[in-house]
């Protein structure tokens, strides 16, 4: 199970730490395709206890990966939830067994468009089937079966990670003791689909994309992908946060240049975001994962009533949103809460006041951390797990 996997990056393939699970039994995807074989690359932190009751599944967001609490193998930057996960932290690896798997369709070791299709010996590219959030969760369930975990203590994640959390509770309620969907929605809004489409068009407009067939030709639509990232990154922030960080400050100059160089700090910042992103992310993977988000509509799967998705669900929920998040506004979290109430589910809901926008779930937000800690402590007591 510990065969090395590698991530496709602009500077060749980089070996990935962590674990892989190779599954030969076919996975029935929503699109009708049976995917087999497939691989799930995952990482764990902490120790699984004797009765396997202390596992927390962390679901990563659109461009996240399994490196929650350790330096990223490609960029060397701290894990994406390093601030929250680790010994003594909120997701305390001294108490809990953390699992995070690279999503199906991703580009950090799990089966996705950048990986080799065993049937052809060529990269999947656009021949990879379109996957959904439910497919990602189905694959994660295979991983849990493999690890012998009958019930997760908690499933948590922000943004697309939060969609997976909701899908988990809807698809496998008896396997989720507690669920914390953060800064997310039960369906992708028209505005969100619109932003994703801008990103995809930027990639597909790059001549290096080669109709998705860039890998065999050693080409890379990095400019298109960078533009996609730049547009998306704006949606992760807030007007207030952008203003606070950059205002109209100029970049390394005292006056406007009357040209199209990055005069403003905010331009420079976005360009940097784009450039660093393409070093670690695959363009086709970006197409597939954004599509999975767009297709997400939990109510539609359940006869149009979101409450039906949670009927009889024994899971304890804590829904969290941020005041300045305009990508997944509080209103959409409230819809989830209303549906959970209508299903008489056990739910808490906290809106955290912050000006940091959607990305607040990744940042130092004391109120988020205190809420999560309190909720997990309460759940641990109900589950009979030892205290801190």
């Amino acid at each position, binding site marked *: 199970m510990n065969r090395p996997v590698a991530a496709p990056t602009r500077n060749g393939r980089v070996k990935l730490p962590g674990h892989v699970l190779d599954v030969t039994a076919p996975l029935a995807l929503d699109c009708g395709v049976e995917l087999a074989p497939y691989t799930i690359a995952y990482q764990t932190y902490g120790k699984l206890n004797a009765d396997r009751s202390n596992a927390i599944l962390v679901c990563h967001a659109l461009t996240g990966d399994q490196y929650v609490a350790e330096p990223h193998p490609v960029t060397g930057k701290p894990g994406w939830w390093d601030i929250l996960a680790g010994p003594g932290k909120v997701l305390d690896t001294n108490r809990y067994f953390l699992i995070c798997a690279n999503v199906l369709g991703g580009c950090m070791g799990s089966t996705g468009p950048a990986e080799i299709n065993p049937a052809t010996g060529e990269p999947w590219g656009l021949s990879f089937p379109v996957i959904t959030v439910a497919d990602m969760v189905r694959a994660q369930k295979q991983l849990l079966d493999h690890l012998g975990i009958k019930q997760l203590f908690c499933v948590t994640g922000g943004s697309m990670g939060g969609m997976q959390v909701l899908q988990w509770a809807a698809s496998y309620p008896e396997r989720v003791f507690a669920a914390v969907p953060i800064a997310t929605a039960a369906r992708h809004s028209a505005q969100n689909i619109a932003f994703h489409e801008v990103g995809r068009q930027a990639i597909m407009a790059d001549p290096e994309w080669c109709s998705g067939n860039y890998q065999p030709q050693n080409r890379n639509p990095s400019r298109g992908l960078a533009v996609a990232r730049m547009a998306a990154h704006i949606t992760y922030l807030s007007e207030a946060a952008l203003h606070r960080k950059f205002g109209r400050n100029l970049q390394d100059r005292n006056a406007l240049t009357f040209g199209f160089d990055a005069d403003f700090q905010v331009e420079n910042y976005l360009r940097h975001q784009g450039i660093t992103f393409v070093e670690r992310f695959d363009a086709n993977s970006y197409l597939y994962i954004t599509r999975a988000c767009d297709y997400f509509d939990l109510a539609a799967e359940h006869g149009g009533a979101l409450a039906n998705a949670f009927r009889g669900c024994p899971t304890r929920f804590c829904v969290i949103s941020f005041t300045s998040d305009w990508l997944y506004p509080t209103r959409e979290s409230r819809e989830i809460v209303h*549906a959970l109430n209508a299903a*008489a589910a056990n*739910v808490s*809901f*906290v809106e955290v006041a912050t000006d940091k926008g959607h990305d607040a779930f990744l940042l130092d937000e004391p109120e988020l951390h205190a809420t999560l800690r309190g909720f997990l*402590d309460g759940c641990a007591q109900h589950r009979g797990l030892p205290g801190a």
Partner: protein
Amino acid sequence: MSMDARNFNPPSQLRGDLRLVGSMIEPQTRVLDIGCGDGELLYYLVHSKGVDGRGMELSQSGVNSCVRHGLSVIQGDADNDLEDYPSDAFDYVVLSQTLQATRKPREVLLNLVRIGRHAIVSFPNFGHWRIRMGLLIAGRLPSTPLLPYPWHETPNIHLCTIRDFALLCRDEGIRVEKSVSLDRFGRPYTRALANLMAEQGLFLLSRAR
């Protein structure tokens, strides 16, 4: 354990009216506390009576305090957010000192007895002699410990007397299983003229079935 009582009082020091509310609730039942504040009553019920407790609170700081204490509480208000709950979802629905601040007290009351097999409602008694005297003698709107706000700032827009409330229940066919009047210290007031002498009304209600 990390679930120590933190800033909550031990049950013996629970506010008088909350202690009385608590005494009406059977152990091991399902309870929804609307307007649960920082969760004092809910915390007591969960930890002393083993109830499956949920809360609803308007102030976000109250909600966050509750969730930090391991309670299941959502941000919401009685006027807007009770419709979502299915009928008979709870054994008890508690509305403590909040009815007078709702926009549609009658609808709220009907929702309480729909959602819960029992509803427990407490409110400041506007028929108390101090309030009557204030209006009569000083010609001023009342300012009491239970109604401390000046008229232009008050969230209490639908005040009533104990008698008013009892009449509304009768008109709506809501069964009064028990009613207790409380003095200014939150102790039961058992003598005559409750509508004149008591500062709070506390009712255990159920829907006529």
